[in-house]
């Protein structure tokens, strides 16, 4: 960039590439491991097989955990999206005192270490009898997903021209009609991206889940408990499935975000 000699440029490239490999090493390792025929943690795998995928799909407890994870993530991210979108509209269009403070409050679960949220909800839910209930889990995950939906929807609404809303009003649309016919269709791509964000956050959540879940099992909770006790290669198969889902989701979000022009807006 500043006219470095070629050897410096090569050194920087080598260092940068090495760090990038370090960053991606877990993904590079786990995917081939999941097709290993050995039950030891040998890399590269001595032979190939699908036994760890069979172990996952053949175990009703893992499948039940997957069902719980999916239902929990779907409920929590939908709640966080609806509440977060309405609140984001108020934050962007509203003129009331203490707005920055309210916004900071909605961001707080992201800033606070999750262990604190976990302990606080644990003690609170134990008192009001929600500990170990599915409803308690949904509430906890919703709180954790709220910062993401508020953040994405605030950016989206801020970028939406208010004159279009005013035009709808001047043409006689009441607020609900305007919201349904103008706001919702225009904000849909951003809302989809926000929902996916929130879904992933909930689906991967470990710490708050460990505190609140009681007898409920989610995929990350089972993975964590197995990892602390012993090394079980079934986890590599789940990991690979999760990485596959992540890659597909990232592509979906980037497409949605590009359609919404979200990336350019965030960059501004």
């Amino acid at each position, binding site marked *: *960039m*500043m006219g*470095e000699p070629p050897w410096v440029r090569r050194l*920087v*490239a080598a260092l940068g590439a090495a760090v*990038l490999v*370090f*960053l*991606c*090493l*877990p993904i590079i*390792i*786990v995917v081939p*491991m999941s097709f290993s025929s050995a039950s030891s*943690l*040998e*890399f590269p795998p001595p032979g190939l097989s699908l036994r760890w995928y069979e172990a996952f799909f053949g175990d009703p407890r893992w499948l039940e955990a997957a069902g719980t994870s999916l239902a929990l993530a779907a409920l929590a991210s939908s709640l966080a999206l609806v*509440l*977060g979108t*309405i*609140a984001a*509209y*108020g*934050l962007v*269009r*509203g*003129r*009331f005192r203490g707005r920055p403070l309210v916004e900071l409050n*909605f961001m707080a*679960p992201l*800033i*606070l*270490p999750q*262990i*604190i*949220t976990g*302990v*606080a909800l644990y003690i*609170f839910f134990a*008192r009001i009898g929600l500990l170990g209930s599915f409803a308690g889990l949904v509430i*906890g995950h919703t*709180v954790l997903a709220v910062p993401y939906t508020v953040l994405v929807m605030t950016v989206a609404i801020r970028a939406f021209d208010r004159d279009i809303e005013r035009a709808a*009003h001047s043409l006689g649309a*009441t*607020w*609900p009609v305007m919201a349904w016919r103008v706001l919702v269709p225009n904000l849909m791509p951003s809302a989809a991206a926000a929902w996916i964000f929130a879904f992933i956050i909930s689906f*991967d959540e*470990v*710490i708050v889940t460990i*505190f609140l879940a009681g007898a409920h099992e989610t995929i*990350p909770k089972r*993975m964590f408990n197995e*990892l602390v006790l012993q*090394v079980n290669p079934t*986890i590599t198969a789940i*990991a690979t499935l*999760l*990485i596959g889902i*992540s890659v597909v989701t*990232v592509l979906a979000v980037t497409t949605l975000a590009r359609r919404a022009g979200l990336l350019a807006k965030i960059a501004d």
Partner: protein
Amino acid sequence: MSTIQLRLGPSGVGFVLPLGLVMLLAFNIPVVLMLAWGFTSPKGVLVPWIDMVERTVYLRVLVNTFRIALIATLTCALLGYPLAYWLCCLKGRARMIGLALVVLPFWVSILVRTYAWIVVLGNNGVVNRSLLGLGLVEEPLAILYNELGVIIGTTNVLLPFLVLPLFAAMVRIDRRLLMAAAGLGAGPWTVFRRVFLPLTLPALAAGAILVFILTLGFFITPAILGGGRVPMIANMIDMLINRLPRWELAAALSTVLLVATFVCYALYLRIGRAAQPS
């Protein structure tokens, strides 16, 4: 003005109310109650706090956590700076792919990323078998289930948080400044040291504080890669809640973690504001 807007108030505060109420009930009140719990021990208001200071184990865990956070932050800065700089030098498609690879781990469960390090660093792992195979060591190096393993895993998980803002800051630098410095006779090293580096320092500091905050509250990576031998604050809190039942002590430790986080976050906001030219 339409009816709904009148009903919700012209200020728009009504839109914020539903989420505000949910957050109040499911977040603010629980956190405040937890903080209060640290002062409501039946044995005496300050008993958990005296315990925390007198029993050296808690102080040791606190000091240990801050030390590991500091080392992980420095490692992230040392590894992240060349990566961000290299990405900044790349152009077009190569840069997009590089950035995508930095962002990709964000989307992969932290459990998965931590698990992979068991495969890499274990006694029978890739690193040790290579070293043994090359005859560089006589017996497997102990890299896993100790502090080194925790630091490697933490650095790996948190590196993108430092690289992305740093890259954004580097891209924003006006290249004409560098050219002007070179035109005035400065060599490449001087341009870097006197112009480029100072311009990236606020972003580097902000990213480093973010990594520091996140390491302070880290739970999963120390639990798995530390093998129970590297207790950090979060793991201690978990033990005090789930094994020992000493909630008031857990609440007191959580308060310490919360205050440390907020102090660092205030610092982060201040530096972040300085990093934005507008």
